């Protein structure tokens, strides 16, 4: 779960990591109240989770309070990459001497957390890594001993800092580690971490992605997520509520399957045959009929969907349950959109019988079914 910039900065502040003076505003009154407390020049930043917010016009600058109010007003009426701006973060611009990068994420191969730091910051870390690989410092955190102040000092030294600056970075790095651990962050980064013209350090932007699987330990964010404050499509919100893994894509073939790998391979196969998937939807393992019906309803509620592909390889999931779910959904939604069903595995015969009796044709080969649905999406159903 991606946190908003203001949420991330509030967390950093809690861990005594300096951030620019600033605050959140959702309307004009709040904007006015805020700007009187802040010293221009100011930055006004749309609180949206889309990548490339800056380039998409989501960050404005103002040299006066009046200008800042105008900028905030403008942003609060705008959409950034299709997402309505509900709040803006207004903060004092800082005097940049140098932009650094410091982040902590997971290292799959080493089964641990890893610090990535660089004396080049302000762009995506992947970009830094490809442009100036020699400036990337990687520090693997030993899960037994954790990340200590002295590790922070070692990194600060490798970044070329000494004296008070080294001690200041020590506190910031160590604080970020604790914040990351306490909030179950799968990614926590300061980018840029700015060295100011007077030699201080300020986290000018911060990003935190909380491990979805750990949200049970962070009820405040779980609630925020469920309240729909984040930027989910209606389908995504409905899927989340029903514990279905759904991702909206650009095409017109609705896809439902069991197991993330199988669904991904289904999308790939559709694409291989020239079709365009409208979504990813994994019903997970052992889904009962009602859950499958919900999945169908979600996918069919997307107006872009022209045809539906249900691809089930029954292991824990029972084909008869899937068949019943399909009929249930059909009855409730009353859809006339064409469906291609591929159903093999546990209780396959019973599933096929149920569907065949309802005049729904069932295929056995994934490839064949994919070809069929692509055809339909292009030229219409039979």
């Amino acid at each position: 779960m991606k946190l908003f910039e203001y949420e991330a900065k509030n967390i950093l502040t809690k861990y005594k990591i300096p951030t620019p003076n600033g605050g959140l505003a959702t309307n004009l009154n709040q904007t006015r109240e805020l700007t009187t407390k802040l010293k221009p020049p100011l930055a006004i930043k749309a609180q949206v989770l889309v990548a490339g917010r800056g380039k998409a016009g989501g960050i404005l600058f103002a040299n006066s309070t009046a200008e800042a109010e105008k900028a905030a007003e403008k942003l609060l009426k705008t959409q950034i990459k299709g997402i309505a701006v509900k709040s803006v973060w207004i903060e004092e611009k800082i005097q940049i001497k140098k932009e650094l990068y410091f982040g902590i994420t997971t290292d799959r191969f080493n089964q641990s957390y890893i610090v990535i730091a660089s004396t080049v910051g302000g762009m995506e870390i992947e970009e830094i890594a490809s442009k100036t690989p020699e400036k990337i410092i990687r520090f693997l955190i030993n899960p037994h001993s954790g990340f200590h102040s002295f590790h922070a000092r070692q990194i600060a030294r490798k970044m070329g800092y000494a004296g008070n600056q080294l001690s200041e970075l020590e506190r910031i790095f160590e604080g970020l580690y604790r914040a990351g651990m306490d909030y179950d962050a799968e990614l926590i980064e300061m980018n840029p971490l700015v060295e100011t013209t007077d030699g201080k350090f300020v986290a000018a932007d911060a990003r935190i992605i909380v491990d979805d699987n750990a949200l049970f330990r962070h009820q405040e964010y779980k609630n925020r997520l469920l309240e729909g404050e984040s930027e989910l499509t209606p389908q995504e919100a409905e899927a989340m509520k029903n514990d279905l893994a759904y991702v909206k894509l650009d095409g017109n073939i609705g896809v439902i399957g069991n197991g993330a790998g199988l669904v991904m391979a289904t999308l790939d196969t559709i694409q291989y045959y020239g079709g365009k998937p409208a979504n990813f939807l994994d019903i997970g393992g052992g889904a009962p009929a009602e859950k499958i019906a919900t999945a169908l309803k979600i996918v069919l509620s997307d107006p872009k969907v022209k045809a539906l592909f249900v691809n089930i390889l029954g292991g824990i999931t029972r084909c008869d349950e899937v068949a019943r779910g399909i009929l249930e959904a059909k009855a409730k939604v009353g859809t006339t959109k064409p469906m291609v069903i591929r159903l093999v595995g546990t209780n396959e015969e019973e599933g096929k019988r149920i569907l065949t009796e309802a005049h729904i044709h069932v295929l056995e080969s994934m490839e064949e079914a994919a070809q069929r649905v692509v055809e339909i999406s292009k030229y219409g159903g039979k």
Partner: protein
Amino acid sequence: MVVIIDEKTRAIVQGITGAQGSFHTKLMLEYGTKIVAGVTPGKGGTKIYDLPVYDTVEEAQEKHSANASIIFVPAPFAADAALEALENGIKTIVIITEHIPIKDAVNVMAHAKKVGATIIGPNTPGIITPEKSKLGIMPAHIFKFGSIGIVSRSGTLTYEIAASLTRKNLGQSTCLGLGGDPITGLNFIDTLKMFEKDTQTKAVVLIGEIGGNLEELAAEYIMREKYPKPVIAFIAGRSAPPGKRMGHAGAIIMGKAGTAESKIEKFQSAGVKVAEKPGDVAELLAKLAI
């Protein structure tokens, strides 16, 4: 020889009284797996399928000295269950549970490393040595004993490919799911090493997906070590857009390593044939004429 588990494996089931745990215990018993006891805190003293249930692994071990455990415990408590198994001397642990927090998984793996234990999963269908033993939740009837080793990051996709192999009479030595999470016990390289040593295995099918760089590292390993057995790869997620998580906690593209292109390219330059569709794997294997 086969990999990790065989007929002699004596396993306990942690979370045996839950819906998933009891259901799959039954299937595993039917398949011939030697399940010796179950553990569910608070249910000690009861029985299920004639197996004794204990409150603690400690007690189960005192009485049964198992050497493997399969864990069905719900996510918030699964790491504790794994640590319990580790501390009580169990060296092979299959964690079926999905949605375990990363921080918990990191902790479990660190302890496993310290004591030299093998963790399969979390979020894995488990491991099966067809017709001999299974510690997992895979539908057993689609597998057949033979000489192909399968290692995968995904469940049903493995079944899809294994079933198509079985249909073409290409039996399997061992099929193992690493697990779909970002932090898993085994990685592709660990498993390639096991398959290398296993005389039963003549070729390896490696089923990867987008996210992370474990496939890239495996490709580099195959190239660097001149891996002696043929490897066929399939990568799911060619059509996935970056930044979107595709179901598995691991399946998200962040950065270049992680894309299907990156993985496919690396495998190809390591001399590994990459199937374009799941169905193509069996055909590529058939061409090897092993």
